[in-house]
């Protein structure tokens, strides 16, 4: 974290090499986040580039008392929201229950049921998750990715998204249960 602050401080003084260090440090986690949320590798790379440029231009507004990664991912999250707005992509309200295709509210309590996961090895499960991830509403998918791909804490995600911690926990849980359900169906 201190390292990030030093890079930012040097970049603000015009040291472009310092900003390049930031890019090298965050290019992979940022692209993973964008790629997993959008499901498109090329779009993820384009977005990552645009987000780094945005971050560079607004570097002076970064407050050192906060984590740089949270600040950068907040820019990324807002960038995605803008993108979805432009595409008029159906996103999910974070205050409403999630409905499935039939308009029924998905059960919050999952029945243990027959285990399908046991049939697959870890690699196969991952492949299935990747395929199923695209069917999870974007709002839930983003929170799931921040938690399990980027390994942010629930508190950090709450701060990043401006949501209560309880809501974030509930939404990540819903994303996971949705994934489990989709995998059962496939």
């Amino acid at each position, binding site marked *: 974290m201190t390292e990030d602050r030093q890079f930012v401080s040097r970049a603000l003084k015009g040291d472009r090499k310092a900003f390049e260090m930031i890019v090298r440090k965050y*290019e992979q986690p940022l692209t993973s986040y964008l790629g997993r949320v959008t499901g498109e590798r090329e779009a993820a*790379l384009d977005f990552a580039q645009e987000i780094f440029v945005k971050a560079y231009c607004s570097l002076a507004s970064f407050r050192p008392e906060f984590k740089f990664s949270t600040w950068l991912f907040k820019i990324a999250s807002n960038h995605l929201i803008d993108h979805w707005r432009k595409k008029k992509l159906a996103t999910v309200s974070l205050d409403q229950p999630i409905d499935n295709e039939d308009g029924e509210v998905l059960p919050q309590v999952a029945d*243990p049921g027959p285990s399908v996961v*046991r049939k697959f090895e870890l690699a196969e499960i991952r492949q299935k998750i990747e395929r199923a991830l695209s069917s999870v509403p974007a709002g839930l998918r983003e929170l799931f990715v921040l938690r399990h791909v980027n390994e942010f804490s629930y508190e950090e995600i709450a701060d990043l998204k401006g949501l209560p911690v309880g809501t974030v*926990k*509930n939404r990540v*849980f819903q994303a*996971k249960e949705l994934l489990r359900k989709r995998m059962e169906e496939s």
Partner: protein
Amino acid sequence: MTIVTPCPRPEDLYFYLEGELGPYDAAKLEEHIEGCDACREALAERRRLHEAFVSLPPFEVPEGFARSVMESLPEPEKRPLAWLAPLVTAAAALGVGLIGFNLFTGLSVFDILVALNGFFGQAVAQVTPAAVKAIKVAGIVLKVAGDILVAALSGLTTVIRLLGPQGALAIGLLVLLVTLAVIGARRFLNQGEQS
């Protein structure tokens, strides 16, 4: 084995796997799992899912991505030379002044420059010794004031060390009271003189 506690909520199974459940709730869940086959199976299933969630492969970033980002960054704004503006203004003002003077007096620019040189030379000759004296006096005054301040501070520190914080506070209050009393007395005497 008999089930002694109610089945945990599905979200608690995930929170348990993530280490987000408190120690008391985690112990309760573990105790329950021992006696509930359905929950044990549900936990095992979610454990496998959780392991897959946290080990999803990262997206590959092409070689040279950072370089292309750096090339797309805007160039830092070239800040104009801030010191140049007043210098140019002063030179322009001098030029205008010289031309105006030339027009009004009929003196050539060379004559004006000679006159200006003489004027500034005289001024410098008169002002310099006085300025040197003033600087010397200011230095002495500052040194004396500094010594007094250092002595006062060291005295105050010694008093505080000897008396402790309460003593220092008591002295402070006493000084305040004396000051107020002096001010009050002066105002009283002034009123007496006016009447």
